[in-house]
């Protein structure tokens, strides 16, 4: 590595990034908390959406880090740190879960003892849908993710200084152990925190559905960050649009993967038309939800699919920035679509509350920006000690 390569090491991000983070966090929290005073039940469910957004980006990013190691990918090395920074949000999962855990009965129908006693199916499920066991599960999942995040990122950071190849080897082993555990934990968390919002409903594909969305969301935020950093000269000058192509292609692949999983789930339930399952989709086809369901297909599939279909589009920085922000919004929309039909209001709260509903997700994005900002203060933006870095920077399509 030559001396000129050092120019991008430890360059501070502008303060406006920090300001933007604080602004979004502040405005978002203010809106969300105002909402809590208007309709606590509804805004706790909103909080759940924001919480799951952070879970999906944290766990999804951690998965992408692990995937690079076990797949032996080269091209992604210069952007891996960005993934690592966002993956740090898994450290906050347990803390951020507390507000929900304190309001279990408001969010989860099955957590109300009276509801369970009147309902045969909920009684049957009681051994699993049990508040204590539920808390244990999120503690275990959050704990495991934090552990693997700490180990993987520590090795990666140490490698910046030592350039020790053994650390790559160690991280490959860690990643190989992590991925199967991730598959189980992410399924359990998605069943617990999203599927059980409608406690009678069940679908075996649900874990895969959430996985596809969470990888997509973390890819989107990483793509946006990469393009932004590259445009502002924070990434390595030898990084070209060819590197961006892979991000664009992965985004495109996961858009299709999500659509495939969503379609499979829908078609099978629609076709069999069993009342024990189809009520979930009927709920999402009643009243205003019909428009939301159609919009979900447009927003989450048709638009990003068309935007990223062509080969030049996948490496066009402008296009990628648009697509990744769009997909991030689509993911929040998807989470909203998964959670909110289970909210039943007795009284109309007006248009103002709809606006406030953006609060918690915006706060979550603010939190991610701040997390990223503070991570860059202490760490290199590129894993400069990674043995694959040079090979990676030579990468051309």
């Amino acid at each position, binding site marked *: 590595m030559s001396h000129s390569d050092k120019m991008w090491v430890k360059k501070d991000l502008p303060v406006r990034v920090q300001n933007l983070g604080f602004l979004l966090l502040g405005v978002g929290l203010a809106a969300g908390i105002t909402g809590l005073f208007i309709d606590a039940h509804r805004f706790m469910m909103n909080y759940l959406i924001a919480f799951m957004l952070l879970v999906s980006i944290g766990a999804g990013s951690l998965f992408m880090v692990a995937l690079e190691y076990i797949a032996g990918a080269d091209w992604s090395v210069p952007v891996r740190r960005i993934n690592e920074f966002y993956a740090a949000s898994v450290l906050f999962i347990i803390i951020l879960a507390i507000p929900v855990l304190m309001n279990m009965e408001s969010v989860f129908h099955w957590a109300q003892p009276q509801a369970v006693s009147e309902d045969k199916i909920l009684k*049957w499920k009681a051994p699993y849908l049990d508040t204590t066991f539920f808390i244990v599960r999120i503690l275990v999942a959050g704990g495991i993710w934090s552990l693997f995040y700490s180990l993987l990122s520590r090795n990666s950071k140490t490698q910046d200084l030592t350039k020790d190849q053994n650390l790559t080897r160690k991280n490959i082993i860690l990643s190989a152990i992590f991925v199967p555990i991730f598959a189980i934990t992410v399924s359990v968390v998605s069943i617990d925190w999203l599927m059980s919002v409608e406690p009678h409903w069940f679908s075996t594909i649900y874990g895969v559905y959430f996985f596809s969305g969470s990888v997509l969301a973390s890819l989107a935020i990483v793509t946006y960050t990469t393009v932004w950093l590259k445009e502002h000269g924070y990434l390595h000058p030898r990084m070209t649009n060819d590197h961006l192509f892979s991000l664009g292609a992965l985004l495109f692949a996961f858009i299709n993967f999500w659509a495939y999983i969503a379609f499979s789930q829908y078609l099978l339930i629609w076709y069999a038309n069993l009342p024990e399952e189809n009520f979930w989709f009927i709920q999402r086809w009643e009243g205003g939800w019909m428009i939301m369901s159609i919009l979900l297909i447009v927003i989450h599939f048709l638009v990003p699919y068309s935007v990223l279909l062509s080969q030049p589009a996948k490496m066009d920085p402008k296009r990628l920035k648009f697509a990744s922000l769009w997909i991030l919004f689509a993911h929040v929309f998807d989470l909203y679509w998964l959670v909110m039909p289970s909210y039943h209001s007795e009284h109309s709260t007006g248009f103002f509350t709809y606006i406030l509903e953006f609060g918690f997700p915006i706060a979550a994005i603010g939190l991610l920006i701040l997390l990223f900002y503070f991570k860059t203060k202490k760490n290199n933006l590129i894993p400069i000690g990674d043995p694959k870095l040079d090979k990676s920077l*030579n990468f051309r399509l």
Partner: protein
Amino acid sequence: MNIDYSKEDIIVSGRLSIAQIEDLIAKPLETKVDKKFLIALSVSVTALMIGAISLGFSLLYGTGLWGNNQPVGWAFPIVNFVFWVGIGHAGTLISAILYLLRQKWRNGIARFAEAMTIFAVMTAGIFPIIHTGRPWLAGYLFPYPNQHSLWVNFTSPLIWDVFAVSTYFTVSFVFWYVGLIPDFATMRDRTKEGIRKTIYKVFSLGWRHSHRNWQHYEKAYMLLAGFATPLVLSVHTIVSFDFAVSIMPGWHTTIFPPYFVAGAIFSGFAMVVTVLIFVRKIFDLEHLITIDHLEKMNKIILATGMMVGYAYAMEFFIAWYSGNQTESFVFVNRAFGPYAWAYWIMVSCNVIFPQFFWIRKLRRSIPVMFIIVIFVNVGMWFERFVITITSLHRDFLPSSWGYYRPTLYDFGILLGSFGLFFTLVILFTKALPVVSIAEIKAVADDAQPSHHGDH
């Protein structure tokens, strides 16, 4: 073990020159058949003949010769169909998906795997047609305006299968042929005179290895890979719909599509490894299809095996969680009922044995991987058996419960399907270059300037 991660992977070992590679691959086509070839061919043709005789009797006397009964109406034919279609998936995954993922190591094995896809789909296609009992009426599977006003049931996934599988076969075949064109040209240029030269000439479509040729070729190849990728996923997805759109407990579950696709890739890779172990040895291709290749495939087997295991576990969990009595019964019956033996063969072969591949030494050892991939082949056949038979033999009405026993004719036809597949594979090794000459040259040492110069 010390791996230098900063170096590029070496795909062709032994520092072979471009000319040596070409000679090596062309050798089986330019030498006379030997004893080994004839023995292998006669074994597989014997199997094929046994199948043909079993099938001949079945057509003569009717499908009553098979074990299919009430309530198990779907038996061996469906099991074998799903098994063989699944085998085909590895080929397209290697040739198209790994190509789009820029996995250069796939260049050494893509041709062979894709040929296996085509043969496996051909083998698979036989079963639904004979299962209809009157295969001579198979033409009605295609919707066309006819004087009887007979139309297919468009809402049935079985008819989607007809479209999906035939489209898949066509695209796979075209993709395979397009990949073969430069190699046909190479063979044409190597051949002196005679009928062989004429055949190569015709099939090489006037290929001149010019820049223009390559430019068009690359574009066509990329597009076909892009077409083949959703197709391959759609095929096994629709095969899974055959089961999952019904309201049969044990069949109707939403995870079926990705679970079937993962299973198909799993079984297909096992079959590819099984065959390549022999091919690389017999045709001296150890430098082109290296232990590294096999190791990578074994890793994919490990990964997809765990995906399949995830699906088993998730089905079991949701069967309980749903609170649906019949669903829970079917799963308990699978694991502890009359077909428990088949279930545990499936679980141990598909989920437990592949775990040995966690250990690097074992996934790089030829005897060990051979044993494990054979287990996987067996296990994946049993998976389809378990899904089909256990759900049917005890359905909603206990008075009509039954037990299914295959007959000798069922086994004969199953054996025959292996015979057909391996006969085609063996003939292929003598008829066409088993490794893509053009593609392997692109990843040979001489084609990698970065191996030598430092940056």
